[in-house]
């Protein structure tokens, strides 16, 4: 592994090799532009470039942009520079971890980060998580068996729905403005005086500030992060929610979307595909296992520990669309929501069952979640979602 790559005799020189290395990194998802190649060459000029460890550290400082990049850098460096002639033929072990990883399945991480949960997948009903809460309807039982049968989202959602949902998403986005901005902007009316503009105006009146200019706190758009449960028990309701996700992604570039059943999948980038039907097809391919079991707690914990660290902040509203029938113990949901809450976001849980007459949130998962929710509402159609804008505006 430590042998330095032998380049062919016709190799055009170190500059081209570094450019090749940058292309190699780019192919593995590093966000690098043309200017970085220049920086990398300058960096190599500033250190003892013939010493592999110095060259490695120098290139790492230039090329890596975030902690994950640093972790993967060593393997990528070795595969390019330390592979004894076999340039770029070996795939780097972690290459599905690249930038597009957000769109791929989270199965790999799920194995690692949710060790305590994985053992339960193959023990249907072992924890008794579902049956006890079926609350007499006999229909909705959380199952923890993964469904391997392919469900195609295109059968569930039609383009007409997505168009309608886009309008709903825009409406909700406008309702959900953050009023807690600390920045001030020049405005016609406002509480604070804008000294800069006031002085400029005062020059005209001999230094007497006759007209006061004002500043106010502007409303901030919030970032909507939607997580949609697509397990078996939710499939009947999946149609409006999926359309909503697709509409949301198209209406608001800052929003973020995930599906979960026994795993969590980030679908934001896939849903932004130009053709809505093609987008759904991509999601179908990624979200293998739709209509299967549900592990809400595990999925949310995974979300809180990974994506939320990057994509959820104080100005986010996390919308969870789920019926709360979970095969994981309820503590997982509580722990996950607590961790999410600590990031300063607001959490909205939309439960289609809440619309039922006499519904009580007695599913253990749902009961565990309640203390952490800013809003708990019913929604099982697009119209119901659209009707929520008043309540969402109030949180």
């Amino acid at each position: 592994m430590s042998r330095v790559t032998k380049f062919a005799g016709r190799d055009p020189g170190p500059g081209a090799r570094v450019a090749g290395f940058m292309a190699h990194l780019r192919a593995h998802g590093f966000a690098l532009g043309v200017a970085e190649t220049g920086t990398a060459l300058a960096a190599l000029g500033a250190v003892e470039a013939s010493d592999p460890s110095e060259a490695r550290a120098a290139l790492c400082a230039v090329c890596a942009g975030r902690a994950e990049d640093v972790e993967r850098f060593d393997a990528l460096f070795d595969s390019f520079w330390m592979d004894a002639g076999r340039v770029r033929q070996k795939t780097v072990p972690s290459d599905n971890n690249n930038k597009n990883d957000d769109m791929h399945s989270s199965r790999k991480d799920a194995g690692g980060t949710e060790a305590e949960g994985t053992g339960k997948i193959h023990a249907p009903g072992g924890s008794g998580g579902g049956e006890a809460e079926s609350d007499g309807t006999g229909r909705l039982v959380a199952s923890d068996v993964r469904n391997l049968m392919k469900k195609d989202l295109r059968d569930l959602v039609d383009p007409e729905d997505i168009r309608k949902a886009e309008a709903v998403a825009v409406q909700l986005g406008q309702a959900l403005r953050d009023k807690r901005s600390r920045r001030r902007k020049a405005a016609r009316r406002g509480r604070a005086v804008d000294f800069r503009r006031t002085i400029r105006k005062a020059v005209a009146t001999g230094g007497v500030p006759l007209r006061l200019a004002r500043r106010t706190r502007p409303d901030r758009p919030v970032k909507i992060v939607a997580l949609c449960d697509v397990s078996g028990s939710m499939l009947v309701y999946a149609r409006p929610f999926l359309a909503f996700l697709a509409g949301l992604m198209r209406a608001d570039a800052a929003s973020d979307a995930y599906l979960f059943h026994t795993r969590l999948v980030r679908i934001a980038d896939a849903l932004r595909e130009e053709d809505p039907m093609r987008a759904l097809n991509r999601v179908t391919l990624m979200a293998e296992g739709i209509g299967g079991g549900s592990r809400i707690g595990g999925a949310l914990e995974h979300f809180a520990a990974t994506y939320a660290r990057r994509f959820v902040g104080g100005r986010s509203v996390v919308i969870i669309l789920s019926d709360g029938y979970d095969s994981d113990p309820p503590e997982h949901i509580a722990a996950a929501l607590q961790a999410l809450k600590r990031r300063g976001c607001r959490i909205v849980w939309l439960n289609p069952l809440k619309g039922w007459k006499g519904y009580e949130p007695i599913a253990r998962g749902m009961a565990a979640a309640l203390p952490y929710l800013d809003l708990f509402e019913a929604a099982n159609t697009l119209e119901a979602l659209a009707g929520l804008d008043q309540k969402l505006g109030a949180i």
Partner: protein
Amino acid sequence: MTYLDLQNDLASQGYVASDDLAMALHLAVTLGRPLLLEGAAGVGKTEIARALASARDTRLIRLQCYEGLDAAQAIYEWNYQRQLLAIQASGKTGKEAEAQIFSEDYLLERPLLQAIRQDTPPVLLIDEIDRADEEFEAYLLEVLADFQITVPELGTITAKSRPLVILTANGTRDLSDALRRRCLYAHVDYPERKTELAILDARCPGLSAALAGQIVGFVQDLRKEDLVKKPGVAEMLDFAAALSGLGVADLTEDPTALMAAMATLLKTEADRGAVPAEVAQRLAGRAA
């Protein structure tokens, strides 16, 4: 000068930098690029800038970011009271008055403007950039690209000397790719056992080797526990100071003193609950 020289210089200031970090700093100095440091709170990101400034014997200019930070706090502001007085006192009007009150005399420098107007290149620390909002980040990109600031009334002010810029972030929100690309990057992690021992030795030279080993081992084990807020290097140093203040020579000898000193390490109620006396004793026993 190589990165090893820089590492030694920093060590003489009491800062123990890892190889990767020293290399990133060395490149930032030689290439004149800003350096983005990321890592959990309490790993010593801010301290790096301080150590670097004193190692290079130059000024440290610090801009603490917060939400709502705007140009008036970060770059410059006019001294409004003096401006008002001046217009009224001089009795001038129109162009004349304008020329007078929008001159250097009435300009208040804030950290960014200050940094580019120094004669010797200072270290500019932009602390917790992820707390500032996107608007400020975008503005900062502009300043970092050409080190010049435009004041509409005065014109463009170009840097006399390029400051060495260090940005820190600990993940309050995700930074833009544009900012990441413009900066060199180093991820600062909790130090390894050896490095942490060296840090403790540099900061508290009076400690016995046995106790120092115990303290570092204890804190390192504690970081592996499931805590809301893991103790950082600063907390470890406080812990060591607390123990020597309490006259503890061995972690296992006095459980009450140990629990009292833990107040420097665990800063939330949940964390205090997560590490009861028995667990602390077990960890101390393992570290001994």
